């Protein structure tokens, strides 16, 4: 209803605006009034409506868009709604105003109507029937407000009066009245139309409220969609104002209530790592006004450790001011973790790969190195065998008659050969150590014995006037455990080195226990040692020295050979040496008290090898222990040597967990020191070592030896002592010596593996020397003694005979020591053989021995012996290996044999020579043993070789010879024992053998017993 009124007003207003023209064209005016949509205000109003309509439609569209850009959607929507409401309200206000206007206009129209009526009356009275009362209208208008109610009253009255009073004019007035009535009607009509319009407008308004619903529906739908889309998304969406307070938050996994969040800042809500960072980041984005993304790891009490990818976008107001930020966060913890893991894995892989390649490289290098070393070792080994052959032959050659020049040449040849052998052995040793092939043995040994023996050996080969001394401190245990061979090698090497570079004064060994230098402190210890050396040491010279020409590979050998070298110069070195030590021992005996360590404790023993030699210049120290390095080329020339000795020593010491150092003062001397850990055995005494026992059985002075701590070998005493004591003692100990010489021989041969030829000489000297005095000391000897100790007395006596022979040989030794050596060797070997193999026919054996001895010396005698005493044996065998085996067996049994490879050759051999026995393989190519036997038998029976001819063996030329050789032919007519050698195959049955004229058979493989039986049976 209100609206109705208002619409009236509006109508009025419009009318009012046109009022001035009203009298002239009312009709048009009326018409105009109906066209509300067209003119002025109406149009505006419509426009307004449409404007309202338009934005709503646009809003929908935009909303749809906005739903796509969800960020701004909500605020936009809110804004739109407000805007719409505002417009709606505006429309209502305008409508109201219009209604006001309309009602006013109506009032005015009514007033005017009254006025007009009054006017008409006035005009009647004045007779002014003009139709143009414009001005008057104005005037009337002026008055108009003042007389409304009077007019009203008057209108009714005057009408009635007018109609009644004037007829003439009545018609006019009637018309006038009608006209007015029409106007009124029109006015009413218009009013109604306006009313209708108003109604419509109101209805429209009502209708127009439906977009709101629609809008809200769309909004709802959009909201649903958003929820649907977001419902499982691990995202947080929020809006924060410029103060970073949450204005809106969407969180699918809310751990906080809305009221806890809204209006607060991140920092206020959470605490922990990352919170501040995220807030700062948001602030930064807000300040910069540019969207950005960042990954932030949170470590909050609320949701633990999580990483979020946060997208922050600034929000601007319409005016372009920053009013806050929108942000969206996504939990990427798993992804980040996975990524990190991947990165880590990738990194690891890379590292692994790098390592792998590094390792491969190393392996490759190592392999190469190993191969090279292996190669070197193999080559050295390969070279050694032929070289030792050369050297041994040279040695044999030196035993023959040579003139002065030849001898000199031969000496050079020998020493060069020895040097090369030494070098090769050193290389082998080194490569063994380096390639880790060298294994250390842990065995019990007596350091005093070792020291003593080393010195003794050195003294034996001493060519200078030097005092050799050794001192073993009291606290050094009697027995310690270590690799005695290597330790001796080191000692010997160092000592011989020292001797080599010392021209006068002394060379000595000091042995003492070092107070527990647990080698964790190795460094410190080392430093201490270095500090001790005021003079920096250097032994290069020495290292090289030890490899001088006369020395042979392993230290012992080297020394031994030296001895040999010396032998010729000094008259009776062996005896000399032997006496001195014994003397010393006895004198010093008893000083010594051993404290035995309990259990297997480790004891560190320091060993100094000192000399008063030429010393080592400082500048040579760094390279001292390097391979092939000598102090200078001069030294190398002067002293010889390979430059490997010290390198080997050092390697060995280090291999055993110790340290080798040196201190030296030039022209004053050098001291080489090595410290090694040893275990001390629980069993305090030497009882468990069988070798030692056997030693002790034989020698009284063994006991003394174990405890003695000081040894000295004076240079001057050597010669004199020898002559006085030596011989007597030697004879006394004869029987023992024999046993020992043989045993020693074995022991030494073991040591001297590398150098057969060099050793030959050394063996002799060493063994004899040891036999005389020192047997007990030498551990190697002791070892081999087991076998010897079983020797029955008789055989020893046999040996004694031999030994006497040897002695005789020895007497003539001066002139040609090497001959003696070989002879000695032979002899001692014979003894050994004799003792080893118990022979049924000792005579033949000894004969054979004689043979071998004489072989060296005198070929012709051997020939004689052979021809007269030997039965001739023929072996018919095609298999080389069988031949080799059988041959050696026969050799060992004291027979040499002829060998042919098949039946035909056998027949020919029988044709040519007479044999006492034939060993015949049955199964052979070309002609088998059975056929050959048949032919031979046939000859024996018939005296001719028809059977042989039949078999195709025609070319037997030497028949004439054999006939001439009456003995031979007559012998051959005798029935030769033919023994079949069968492989136990079916085709070689015993019957068949017998059927073909064989006397017996042995089954293969042949062995000693079978052969021996056979020989016993068939040889006279």
């Amino acid at each position, binding site marked *: 209803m209100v609206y109705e009124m208002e619409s009236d007003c509006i109508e009025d207003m419009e009318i009012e605006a046109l009022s001035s023209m009203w009298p002239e064209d009312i009709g048009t005016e009326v018409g105009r009034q109906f066209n509300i949509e067209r003119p002025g205000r109406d149009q505006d109003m419509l426009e307004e409506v449409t404007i309202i309509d338009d934005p709503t439609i646009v809003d929908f569209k935009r909303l749809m868009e906005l739903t796509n850009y969800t960020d701004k959607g909500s605020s936009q929507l809110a804004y739109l709604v407000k805007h719409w409401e505002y417009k709606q309200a505006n429309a209502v206000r305008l409508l109201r105003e219009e209604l006001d206007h309309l009602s006013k206009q109506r009032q005015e129209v009514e007033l005017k109507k009254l006025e007009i009526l009054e006017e008409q009356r006035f005009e009647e009275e004045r007779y002014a029937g003009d139709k143009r009362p414009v001005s008057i209208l104005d005037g009337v208008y002026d008055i108009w407000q003042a007389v409304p109610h009077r007019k009203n009253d008057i209108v009714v009255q005057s009408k009635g009066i007018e109609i009644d009073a004037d007829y003439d004019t009545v018609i006019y007035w009637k018309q006038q009245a009608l006209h007015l009535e029409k106007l009124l009607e029109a006015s009413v009509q218009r009013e109604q139309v306006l009313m209708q319009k108003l109604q419509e407008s109101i209805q429209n308004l009502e209708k127009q409220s439906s977009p709101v619903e629609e809008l809200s529906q769309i909004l709802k739908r959009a909201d649903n969609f958003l929820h649907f889309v977001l419902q499982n998304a691990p995202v947080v969406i929020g809006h924060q104002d410029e103060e970073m307070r949450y204005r809106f938050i969407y969180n699918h996994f809310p751990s906080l209530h809305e009221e806890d969040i809204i209006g607060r800042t991140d920092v206020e809500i959470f605490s922990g790592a990352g919170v501040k960072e995220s807030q700062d980041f948001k602030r930064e984005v807000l300040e910069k006004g540019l969207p950005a993304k960042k990954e932030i790891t949170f470590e909050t009490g609320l949701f633990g450790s999580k990483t979020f990818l946060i997208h922050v976008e600034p929000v601007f107001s319409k005016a372009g001011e920053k009013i806050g930020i929108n942000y969206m966060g996504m939990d990427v913890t798993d992804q980040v973790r996975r990524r990190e893991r991947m990165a880590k894995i990738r990194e690891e892989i890379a590292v692994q790969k790098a390592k792998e390649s590094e390792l491969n490289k190393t392996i490759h290098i190592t392999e190469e190195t190993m191969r090279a070393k292996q190669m070197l070792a193999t080559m050295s080994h390969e070279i050694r065998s032929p070289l030792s052959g050369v050297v041994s032959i040279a040695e044999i050659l030196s035993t023959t008659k040579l003139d002065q020049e030849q001898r000199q040449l031969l000496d050079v040849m020998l020493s060069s050969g020895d040097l090369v052998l030494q070098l090769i052995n050193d290389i082998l040793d080194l490569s063994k150590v380096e390639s880790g092939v060298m294994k250390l*043995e842990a065995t019990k040994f007596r350091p005093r014995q070792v020291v003593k023996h080393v010195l003794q050996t050195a003294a034996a080969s001493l060519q200078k006037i030097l005092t050799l001394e050794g001192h073993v401190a009291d606290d050094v245990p009697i027995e310690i455990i270590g690799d005695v061979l290597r330790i001796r090698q080191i000692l010997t090497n160092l000592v011989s080195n020292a001797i080599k570079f010392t021209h006068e004064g002394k060379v000595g060994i000091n042995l003492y226990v070092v107070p527990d230098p647990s080698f964790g402190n190795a460094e410190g210890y080392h430093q201490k040692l270095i500090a001790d050396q005021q003079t920096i040491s250097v032994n290069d010279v020495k290292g090289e020295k030890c490899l001088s020409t006369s020395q042979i590979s392993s230290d012992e050998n080297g020394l031994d050979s030296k001895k040999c070298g010396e032998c010729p110069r000094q008259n009776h070195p062996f005896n000399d040496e032997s006496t001195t030590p014994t003397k010393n021992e006895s004198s010093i005996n008893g000083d010594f008290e051993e404290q035995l360590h309990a259990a297997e404790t480790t004891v560190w023993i320091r060993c100094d090898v000192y000399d008063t030699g030429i010393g080592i210049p400082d500048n040579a120290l760094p390279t001292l222990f390097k391979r092939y390095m000598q102090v200078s080329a001069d030294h190398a020339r002067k002293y010889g040597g390979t430059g490997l000795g010290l390198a080997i020593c050092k390697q060995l010491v280090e291999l055993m967990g110790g340290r080798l150092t040196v201190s030296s003062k030039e022209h004053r001397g050098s001291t080489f020191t090595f410290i090694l850990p040893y275990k001390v055995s629980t069993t305090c005494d030497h009882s468990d070592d069988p070798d030692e026992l056997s030693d002790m059985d034989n020698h009284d002075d063994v006991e003394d030896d174990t405890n003695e701590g000081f040894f000295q070998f004076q240079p001057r005493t050597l010669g004199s002592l020898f002559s006085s004591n030596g011989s007597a003692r030697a004879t006394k100990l004869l029987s023992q010596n024999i046993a020992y010489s043989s045993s020693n021989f074995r*022991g030494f041969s*073991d040591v001297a593996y590398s150098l*057969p030829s060099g050793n030959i000489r050394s063996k002799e000297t060493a063994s004899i020397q040891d036999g005389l005095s020192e047997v007990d000391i030498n551990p190697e000897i002791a*070892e081999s003694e087991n076998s010897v100790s079983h020797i029955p007395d008789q055989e020893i006596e046999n040996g004694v005979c031999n030994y006497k022979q040897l002695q005789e040989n020895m007497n003539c030794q001066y002139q040609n020591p090497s001959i003696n050596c070989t002879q000695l060797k032979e002899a001692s070997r014979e003894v050994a053989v004799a003792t080893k193999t118990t022979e049924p026919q000792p005579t033949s054996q000894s004969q054979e021995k004689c043979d071998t001895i004489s072989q060296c010396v005198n070929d012709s005698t051997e020939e004689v012996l052979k021809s007269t005493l030997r039965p001739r044996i023929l072996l018919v065998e095609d298999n*080389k290996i*069988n031949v*080799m085996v059988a041959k050696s067996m026969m050799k060992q049994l004291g027979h040499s044999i002829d060998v042919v490879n098949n039946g035909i050759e056998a027949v020919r051999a029988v044709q040519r020579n007479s044999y006492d026995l034939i060993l015949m393989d049955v199964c052979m190519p070309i002609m088998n043993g059975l056929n050959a036997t048949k032919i031979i038998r046939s000859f024996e029976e018939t005296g001719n070789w028809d059977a042989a001819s039949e078999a195709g063996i025609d070319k037997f030329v030497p028949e004439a010879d054999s006939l001439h050789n009456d003995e031979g032919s007559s012998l051959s007519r005798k029935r030769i024992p033919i023994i079949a050698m069968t492989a136990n195959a079916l085709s070689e049955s015993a019957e068949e053998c017998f059927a073909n004229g064989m006397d017996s058979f042995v089954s293969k493989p042949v062995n000693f017993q079978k052969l021996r039986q056979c020989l016993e049976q068939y040889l006279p």
Partner: protein
Amino acid sequence: MEVGQMQRQWVDYMRSLFMEGFLDDQFLQLQQLQDESNPDFVVEVVSLFYEDSEKLLNDLTKTLDTKGTDFKRVDAHVHQLKGSSSSIGAQRVKNACIAFRNFCEEHNIEECLRCLQQVKQEYCFLKNKLETLFRLEQQIVAAGGSIPMMELSF
């Protein structure tokens, strides 16, 4: 003594070779033939054996590979091999050879081929074992010991 351990090891190794049948008494015979005058006898014989056997085995392989196998030739070779192996006491090689010969007589090419493989295998085994043994012996000798033949009582 230092070498004692090695010697013990050697004895053990020898025992195992005997127990496993690689070697038999004949090998001991060989060892007895070795002395100071002939220090490498065993090695020499065995080297000869290697040489010989390898030749024979190669030839056997070739012969058995050719069509129309000459079984006589095969048999001769196997016989040779058997002889040598029994001479050095290579028991298992010898036994393989015996089996080989039986099939050879049957002219059974397939079994012969199998036997050849067997023999080759045994030969390789033996070679390895002997090489180890010799190395050990070398070490003993190098360390200054002697081969403890005496302790080899079976």
